[in-house]
């Protein structure tokens, strides 16, 4: 597993596009992903996807946008 943070911007996209984006990105197996989304539906759906892949998700809200930090503990 790579020890880098992958940054993703899904603002302006509506579902299922942000989920498709995180799905593609997670194929590279980074330890941490950070994605910014601009609506609660994307926040919920991307959270579900990341959790399904075994990532721990924390969400920070700032000015109507959400920054999702998704981390997998190294096994």
């Amino acid at each position, binding site marked *: 597993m790579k020890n880098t943070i992958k940054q993703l911007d899904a603002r302006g996209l*509506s*579902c*299922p596009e942000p*989920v*498709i984006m995180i*799905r593609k990105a997670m194929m590279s197996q980074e330890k941490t992903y950070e994605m910014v989304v601009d609506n*609660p*539906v994307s926040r*919920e*759906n*991307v*959270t*579900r*996807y990341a959790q*399904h892949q075994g990532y721990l998700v924390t969400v920070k809200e700032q000015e109507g946008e959400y920054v999702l930090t998704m981390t997998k503990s190294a096994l």
Partner: protein
Amino acid sequence: METAVKLTKLAKCAGCGAKVGAGTLVKMLEGFQTHYDPRLIVGYDKSDDASVYVLDKDTALVQTTDFFPPIVDDPFLYGQIAAANALSDIYSMGGEPKLALNILCIPEDMEQTAVQEILRGGYSKVYETGAIITGGHTIHGAEPIYGLAVSGFVPPDRVLTNSNARPGDVLILTKPLGIGILTTAAKAELVETSVLERIYRQMTTLNKAARDIMVRFSVHSCTDITGFGLLGHSFEMAQGSGCSIHLQADRIPFHPECYELAEMGFIPAGAYRNREYAASGVKVLGDVSRAMLDICYDPQTSGGLLIALPKEEADACLAELNAQSTLTCGLPVAAADGLPAAAIIGYVTEPQEAALFLQK
């Protein structure tokens, strides 16, 4: 047929997922003066599937309209699904459709053959019901839209509203859930062709056969499960009936493939709107998974009927429904194959602390 531009790419929301949320609708209609007419026995103040106007002692007119952007790429299939969905509101009132008008919006550059295929799909379903298309209206717009305005008839004393469920009734759902989730995941090309074919068959299946069976039983209340999802429509039924509805999660039929896709977050925005609308009235008891809850809020396109009838008649009604090869997924052996069929999914009680209970 294949069109040069995928139809679903022209649409922001899929099918009934485009429906404006129930909460928003209530707000939009707030403060409007309701005109009273003693012959109008179901109006828009009732949040029902169609309006009903009594013509004489034997006949009431049932009217409804429904339309949405493409949910599939094949224009013929899209026409069929949109028509089956619009006709369903007549069946859920216990009526029979007789006349229909096309409602059509097309982008200026849309191929003529695609437009004809949409209309041909609609005609095929309308004629299957025994009704006729008498005209319509077409405009240009950025997103394709198709649907129908339908008129039908029902004897006034046989009208089935969504607000007459009674304590002691049980609830039958005639088509499995998961359409919104599966069509959302289909946009990511994560749904197998065989599953897509199954849900297409389900969405083009008219609720006519289910209606023809249910009217032979002492049904108290009925609605079709569409844009507001199972919990949204059940919530309306519970509230309108002044009862509590208890749904049993383990009994609710859904397409098995949608479960993992729900866990993966392929959930349409409409499901979240439905949750926002109904959640305050829903009490979840026991260990119901998040994915199952998502499935219960999932907006359905051309979904099944939710039928409330006395417990004593429920098994006989269910047996007849599941003997119908045209129901559910259009597979007579659906249940034998482990595929979802019509099922008894809950029961009705006197009002309790919540309008709707979802229990394990």
